[in-house]
Structure formats: structure tokens, C-alpha cells
């Protein structure tokens, strides 16, 4: 029988730790990688019961002491601590750790799904690298975050994972439309799309004229401060003040313009507003 420490040459890659006990030496790998085979050796002679207890695994079988025990890669799929117990006359144990393999997928969370343009710290992303067995890769990995809208690149930033996570936060772009957000590690990438929408209206201007039933008022094409058309359906409120009587009509933007008919026969002062943005005042004379 060879002493357990002499078995440390096997597999070339495995460094060994000998956990001496008064009856048996259990030699376990000091660095094992998920999905890769590993070898254990237990000094002694005769039969014993071998237990392997780890994340997702619970093995028990008879062994001959003094022979190497080869653990298949699929037994060591899950990263974490594995406990080896060997019982003959008495029981002895040792523990070894399996670490995650190289990244094989990225869990990438991006928020929000819709964002107004030109908003600071509006878009954020968090990336976790996982190996092919879904173990979190805790060794530092450089993740590249890229944000682009159309052909324009808005962000290209690399971040090292700390404790298995990397993240970014940035402003939204200036143009409405799809914002492509990508996280990549080597040849791995995960893509998400954030819809950038126009921000609040800017320079809201209204015009109006009398017609047979009152005053027809309408906005000029409504844009945000970056020039993006404000989406149809956005409400514009027209308020008319005629002879001390105030009335308000809400109208949705259709094809970029909001229109409303106001019943007023006398002179009226009309204003328009959308959200917190006020437009110009319009004075219309009496019929």
C-alpha cells in the first residue's frame, strides 16, 4: 500500500491535501472544477463504506481502502462543498470544494423596458456569469457593456465582476427608438432592448380660429426638447377662460397634433398644457 501523500502525483493537475486521521488518510483535491473528474485516495486496507455528500449529490458504496476513487465529472456538476466520509471500524471525513467552470452564460437584467430620452441614470444593467452547470462564476471576469441606438454607440464600458456580479448605470440616449443593450464576455453575449420614447413636450405652441360652433384650437406638431415626436395618445389639455368662465377640454395627440373644439362665443384666452409643460396663450376675439 502506498502512503496517501505519494498518490498526489495523479492527474497532474490535482494538488492534494492529506487529512490525517489516526486510522485512515483521506486525500482530497484542493482545487476541483465543476464538471471535471477528480480522484480521491483513502489509505488503509480492507473494505469500507464510502459516502460522498455534496450539493445535489448523495452517494454511498463499498470501497477497498488503499485504492483510488475516481469521481466522474457529472458527479461534481454543482459548485460547493463535498464531504467525504469513510467508515470501516470508525468513520472519518474530509471536505473539498468544487469551483465553477468558465463562464458559459450570462444572466443579464436590464431596466427599465421603456425610458424617456435624455434622462440621467435612467438605464441600468446587472450581469451574473454562470458556467455550463449554472454555477455562479465567482472568480473575476471582465464584462463588456455596450449600448447603441441605431448606428450610434452610447456606451462601451468594461467592468470586472466582484463577487460574481458586474453592473452599470447610465443616461438614456437622445433619440426615440430601440436601445440595444449588450453584455459580453469573450464570445458570450446577452442582448436586451430598451424602448426609448420621447420625453415631455417642449415648446408647446397652440393656434386657433373661430368657426361656426366656437373656437377650433390645435397644437403645432408636438416634440420633446430633443426633437422627438411625442407619442400619439399623449393628452394635451386646452383651457379656455371666457368672461371669467373657465372650461377645459382634454385631447389626445393624433399624428403629432392635438385638436379640440371649444364652445365660446365671446372673447376667450386659451392655453394648452401637457403634463407639467405649459404652452403659449392664445387670445381669440368675440364673434
Amino acid at each position, binding site marked *: 500500500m502506498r502512503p496517501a501523500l505519494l498518490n498526489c502525483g495523479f492527474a497532474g493537475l490535482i494538488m492534494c491535501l492529506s487529512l490525517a486521521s489516526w486510522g485512515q488518510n483521506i486525500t482530497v483535491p484542493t482545487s476541483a472544477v465543476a464538471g471535471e473528474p477528480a480522484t480521491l485516495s483513502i489509505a488503509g486496507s480492507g473494505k469500507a463504506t464510502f459516502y460522498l455528500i455534496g450539493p445535489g449529490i*448523495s*452517494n*454511498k458504496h463499498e470501497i477497498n481502502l488503499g485504492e483510488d476513487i475516481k469521481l466522474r465529472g457529472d458527479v461534481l456538476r*454543482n459548485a460547493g462543498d463535498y464531504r467525504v*466520509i469513510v467508515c470501516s471500524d470508525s468513520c472519518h471525513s474530509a471536505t473539498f470544494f468544487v469551483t465553477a467552470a468558465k463562464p458559459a452564460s450570462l444572466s443579464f437584467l436590464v*431596466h427599465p423596458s421603456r425610458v424617456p430620452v435624455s434622462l440621467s441614470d435612467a438605464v441600468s444593467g446587472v450581469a451574473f456569469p454562470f458556467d455550463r452547470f449554472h454555477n455562479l462564476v*465567482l472568480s473575476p471576469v471582465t464584462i463588456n457593456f455596450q449600448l447603441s441606438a441605431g448606428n450610434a454607440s452610447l456606451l462601451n464600458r468594461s467592468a470586472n465582476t466582484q*463577487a460574481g456580479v458586474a453592473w452599470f448605470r447610465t443616461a438614456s440616449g437622445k433619440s426615440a427608438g430601440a436601445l440595444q443593450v449588450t453584455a459580453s464576455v469573450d464570445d458570450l453575449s446577452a442582448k436586451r432592448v430598451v424602448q426609448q420614447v420621447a420625453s415631455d413636450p417642449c415648446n408647446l405652441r397652440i393656434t386657433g380660429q373661430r368657426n361656426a360652433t366656437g373656437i377650433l384650437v390645435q397644437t403645432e406638431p408636438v416634440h420633446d426638447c430633443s426633437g422627438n415626436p411625442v407619442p400619439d395618445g399623449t393628452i394635451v389639455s386646452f383651457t379656455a377662460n371666457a368672461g371669467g368662465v373657465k372650461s377645459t377640454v382634454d385631447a389626445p395627440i393624433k399624428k403629432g397634433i392635438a385638436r379640440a373644439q371649444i364652445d365660446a362665443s365671446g372673447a376667450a384666452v386659451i392655453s394648452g398644457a401637457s403634463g407639467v409643460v405649459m404652452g403659449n396663450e392664445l387670445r381669440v376675439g368675440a364673434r
Partner: protein
Amino acid sequence: MKSMLIAASLLKFEKQRFGLLAVLFFLALTHFSAGADAGPKVQLDAKKAGPRAVESLTQNAIVRDYRTAWNNMAHALESNSVGPLDGPFTGEAKTWLWQSVMSQQKTGLSRRYVDQNHRVEAVFYAPEGDVIELHDTADFQLQILDSGKVVQEEHVTAHYVVLMTPSADRWLVRHLQSVQQF
């Protein structure tokens, strides 16, 4: 005279009943306090979490749900039943715990976690609050049982990297991975 005897015996019965109730109350009290001690103890330090600060109500919820998760996990791995895993676990954590229980059922093994103490540090809380990473340094007495007989018992100090995500009404353990050190 007869009525006095009846009154005396009634008084004696009341005394006995009170004594019995007092004993039952004492037993119930000790039972429940022992039960409270037996559950996992969880302390959370969220001072270093970022980029988002962890509000105190969120901290309370995380402590509550992480404690429940360990309680249920210990129950599942001791009783070899997957039922307790429904609720506090999801994703990869639930998968490997489910595999552990199934594997233990085949081999007749089980694990018992006794006197759990968890010192948990929140190390990352996502900007939008949709995931939190915890580092748990846990102390417990671990018993490995083969067909109900303890084959190994030892005091363990273990380190866990934990990812929790919020659901409608609680935080779920999505990832639970032990590591040699942080």
C-alpha cells in the same frame, strides 16, 4: 354537613385542575421556547450593500425569508421530502436541493442541521432592487445519517454566496452556493 363536604371536594377538584393547567401551561411554554431556539438564527448587515441602499423593511423581509429558507431546507434534507422546498426556493437553488433530496432518498442518507447561526452580509443590491447578493457565514452542527443512524457529526463553519430575488409577497432564494472563503 353534606353540602360542606361537597363544597370541600369541589374546592379540591378546582385546585387540582388549576395545578394541571399550570403544568400544561409550563410545558407548552418550554416547548414553544425550545422550538424558537431550534430554528435558524439570522443576523443581517446591509450597511455595505450597494449600489442601492437596503431599506429597513426590506432587511426585515430578507431576514424572515432567508430564515424560512434554511428552516425548510433543513427540514427537506432531514426528512427527505421535497415539499418544504416549494415556496422559499426557486431557480438553481431549488434544482440542486431537489436533486439532493432525490439522491438521499435513493441512498437512505439524510442530513440534519442543528443550532444554525447565520451571519449574513448584503454585498450587492441591484439598482432596481430586483436581486440582492448575500454572503452568509453559517455555523451549525451537521449530522449525516445513514438509515437514521448518525455516521458523522461535526461542527461546521460554512460560507455561502446567496442570490435572492423578490416575488409577489416574499424574497426567494434563487442561488445558494457554498464557497471555501469569500
